[in-house]
């Protein structure tokens, strides 16, 4: 397995935990989603936006850190 693949699986694991927490909270404690922690916005909206932003952030991390196994000459972003 390449380092990119390992990195991918690690980031996948991180996101899966966050996503699962979101889904399970919605399913088994939906009232928590009605609380309004910031600026009158409820947790449902905030956490939904957060999930989308986190997905993009993780994909950027991946794009920046992943190295191509087949093209070792190309070292762009391979400073991990």
């Amino acid at each position: 397995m390449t380092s990119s693949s390992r990195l991918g699986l690690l980031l996948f694991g991180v996101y899966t935990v966050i996503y699962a927490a979101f889904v399970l909270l919605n399913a088994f404690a939906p009232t928590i989603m009605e609380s309004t922690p910031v600026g009158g916005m409820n947790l449902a909206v905030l956490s939904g936006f957060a999930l989308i932003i986190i997905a993009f952030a993780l994909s950027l991390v991946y794009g920046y850190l992943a190295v191509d196994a087949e093209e070792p000459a190309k070292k762009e972003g391979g400073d991990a």
Partner: protein
Amino acid sequence: MIYEPSFMAVLIFLGFVGLTMGLSFYLGGKAKSSAGYFAAHGQIPWFINGVAFAGDYLSAASFLGICGMIAFYGYDGFLYSIGFLAGWIVALFVVAEPLKRLGKFTFADALNAKFQSRGITLVIGISTLIVSVFYLIPQMVGAGALITPLLGFPHWVGVLIVGATVIVIVVTAGMVSTTWVQFLKGSLLVLFSAILTIMILNKGFTVTPESADAVDRPRTLGPFAFDKVVPKKDGDLGNAVVDLRKKDDDFGTAIKDLPEMVGAHWRFDSQDKVSIPPYIIAPSGVWSVQTDAGNVWLRECQTVEDIESAGNGKTSKDPERVYEAGAQLVNGYLKGEEYGDPTASYENGRPRRQLFPVGQVSKLPEGKTETGALGPMEFFSTLSDSEVILWGKAKHSIQGLEGVNVYVPKVTAGSQVLRPGENPKFAGIRSTDFTKKLNFVSLMLALFCGTASLPHILIRYYTVKDQAAARKSTIVGIGAIGFFYVLTLYLGLGAMTSGAMDVTSTNMSAPLLAKSMSPLLFAIISAIAFTTVLGTVSGLILAAAGAVVHDIMKNYMHIQLTDSESVRVAKITSVVVGAAAIVLGILFKELNVGALVGWAFSIAASANLPSLIMLLFWKRTTREGIISGVVVGMVTSLAWILLSGPTLDGVFGFKGHAGYVPFSEPGIVTIPLGFLTVIGVSLMTPPHVEKEVAAEGEVPATAES
């Protein structure tokens, strides 16, 4: 509702669609060989490919389905947005690169790179066909929803137009054109949705109060004090004990004495066990009886009745009049009939009998009547302290109104609209019933796993030159798609409060919202959404054609085809699949396209994902394991969906059927079942002997860095 086409809107729409198709033909002329037809010579730049991912993915389901679901029920539709985007995480982090190393043209080629098995080729080809068709249905239904408000054609004409157009595109051009065209539309759809969102925020909310003598919207009577118990059977309002008096006025009018209640009867629906009759049927209309903190309100419903054989109709406001078979009554009048003063300004100055458009804020915080421009966060905090009127279809038939579609208004707190669980589909999370909660988890799991298993998304991995480019494409795709999904919540809630929605179709909400803002924007957005549907459908049809030519004919049946022959067979397949999609698109008209796509994801995730993941990450996987995993996942998820309550009720017409499975979304059962089958059967069959193909099939150990 009745839709009058505007000349300018139609012109802009046709211009845009014509331009897109012209581009398709021009670029398609360059793709002659079969490699070019299917995979664009592997030469699409990564950025273009990334936005094209968005163009593919942000199809009818997202723009029409999700926005419509949010517009009708609030937050729940946004859960689809979140799930659809999360699926990209699986696609990018787990599947994208190993697959790019394995693949050639189709999903089957990728799975087969290791085994060279005809069996695998066949089952994957079939699963690709099934998933493509399930994904095609919502696109076609969505196309009809776009055409109706724009051109005024009935739904089926819209479906026919999109079907015919796509068949022409696919038969004349191919992947090159669709990638570039998808890029164009992906970027325009996101851009114009952003513009629409800014307009929504800029406009803020305006109150349309409930009123007893409204003429441009359904009426509300009340509040009344509720002081007598109502007997639990249907009855005549005049003789009955229903004696609801106006609040704070013990000597005021009882509702039976209101002019609207002359000749009224109150009715239970077929399932009701409550003490207050939920409906009153009067010559003045159908009224919903609603209680709220000791007050009783009567809210006017909207009705649609199809006259099946010539007669008076059940809802007619002119009981003497005889209607022909096939006529449609809306709110008790013949649909489309002109009435009253033709100079009155109502719908282009031609007052015609039609349903009222809906979607209103009935109260704002602190008694304000309008908010003015709102910030992106203020939008939610303001809505959360407001009150809106949502419309839903009466679930059970009402006695005396059997066969009539009754749409019922429901006053809903803004805070309720912004929380999960208002949509009947998601209401289970608020119950104590574990299986209903499981249904929700199951859907979210299918969305998470589905993206990576969709045939038309996978095919784009092969159109860039290397893994780095594939990765960058996906990141661009996630960025564009994620941004759009954030906008869906604003668009949906904007539509909910636009006063422009059609109660009979959730799918039309986003275009109607645009129409209420600006006819120009409406024409542009409809054209983009329509061409997005065209692009998505052509991508799917190509995937289906690829499955037939490569997987089933060449690899399974060993039919020798020359380059030009395989392109010809692919084109014939495209015509057949396109025709099937047209028929299904007409049949499934009533269902929300977002929910339909959810099913396509369930089947894709159950059939394809287990084999794909096990092949990529478990060396012990055998040919037999993959074949049985695909078959078991595909058959069980498909059977589950076909036997579920919503399908039996909504598609096959068994009203109120609970289904033969405990809940409607199969994913949580069938995806693990797929994995277990692959693992179990692999362990029971002899391990795969590594041949020379394995070097490129499995990631070589030497690549460990």
